[in-house]
């Protein structure tokens, strides 16, 4: 029976974090319960819905099927890390402008998946965008406006890069 907690040191939203965690904890448990990062939502706990998506070392991961102890040495980003003192990132703004938010429960996961995609700087077809967003389920929006929001920012970024 596990009794000893394990020290995990990692970077969460740009800050160094050192937490003693139970090796049975998921990263989802750690982020929500120990660090209060409640944007990380729990929808299925088996990696099927993507509501708990976070970015680990530049890749999206379902934090529900990722043990907290694995976070050692990792750079982890959640939705809370995107806004800077209330200022939103472009993709967050686009989610609002395009009407990509309804109940809001899947939104944090979608924004994180979109964030990684946009940071790669690629210009993709709608089909390819959909593929990148296919690990996140949404029941409210039919995905239409979510894909629109991602596509909009992707095009803006491309235009900016061309201009520069």
């Amino acid at each position, binding site marked *: 029976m596990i009794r000893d907690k394990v020290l995990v040191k990692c970077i969460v939203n740009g800050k160094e974090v050192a937490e003693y965690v*139970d090796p*049975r904890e998921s990263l989802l448990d750690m982020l929500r319960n120990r660090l209060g990062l409640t944007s990380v939502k729990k929808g299925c706990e088996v990696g099927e819905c993507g509501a708990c998506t976070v970015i680990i070392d530049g890749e*999206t*991961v*379902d934090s529900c099927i990722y*043990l907290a102890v694995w976070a050692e040495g990792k750079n982890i980003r959640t939705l809370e890390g995107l806004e800077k003192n209330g200022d939103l990132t472009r993709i967050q703004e686009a989610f609002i402008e395009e009407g990509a938010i309804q109940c809001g429960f899947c939104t944090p996961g979608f924004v994180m998946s979109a964030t990684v995609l946009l940071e790669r700087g690629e210009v993709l077809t709608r089909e390819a965008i959909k593929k990148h967003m296919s690990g996140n389920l949404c029941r409210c929006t039919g995905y239409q406006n979510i894909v629109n929001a991602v596509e909009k920012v992707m095009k803006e970024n491309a235009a900016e890069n061309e201009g520069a």
Partner: protein
Amino acid sequence: MYDIENYYNAKSVEEAAALLREHPDSRIISGGSDVLIKIREGKMAGTSLVCIRDIKEIQGISKKENGDIYIGAGTTFSHITNDPIIQECIPVLGEAVDQVGGPQIRNIGTIGGNICNGAVSADSAPTVFSLNALLRIEDGNGGRTVPVKEFYLGPGRVDLKRGEILTHVIIPAEEYQGYHGHYIKYSMRKAMDIATLSCSVVSRVDTEKNILEDVRITFGVAAPVPFRCEKTEAALKGMPVDEKLYQTIEESIRQEISPRDSWRASREFRLQIGGEIAKRALIRTVELAGGNRK
């Protein structure tokens, strides 16, 4: 919180082998996308885990001087897909594992885990079979190398003894050089799904003579283990590339595979789809080889 009895972290293959022997109730965890789900479901609740994520030597992809490709068992699907060696030498494998689950799953799931859990629906398996891959297994005591075909014993069962760890999937040079492959996953959704039926065809075409020189066809979910269609392969080898070839593969596959009825799909249905996807996959490999499809 997962119902895990004990958790051990191995830093080397030797340490992992020793931990597994020392704790007979333990099992290996790598990416976690299979084991953690089974713990959550209760099927593996209360298990102990030996984690092999920190073992660097079983991660990444390399090409040896003789052209053999070594894929570390701990390499994730997305890393395989994005790897330049894979993209250049065996793109079919990168494309196949790009159809596992969704992006998040592909960022954690590993090819070693995909093979070792013995699931007949594993998206890597048909292609690994069609590439005649070898599996390098270490036990801290010399280890062994086995053809992947001999590794699968039954549904969810593989030939991995206590204290053994799959370290590399080896694609020998002669098995991929000059070949082209295509994998078709037939599932109910385009993402976040497991295969209802899957087929990987790897072929070598003499484009001058317009002859199918060699072909290997493997099905997932058509039998208790990934299934090489050897009879059909033998029948097709040496055939001219024309409509008759495609007709032959479709019919022959329906004779050779023996899928079962389940609530997911009927045997009849899988036979219909099986013939069709094998044909379409072969057509694609011929196209990739620059062959004449007529």
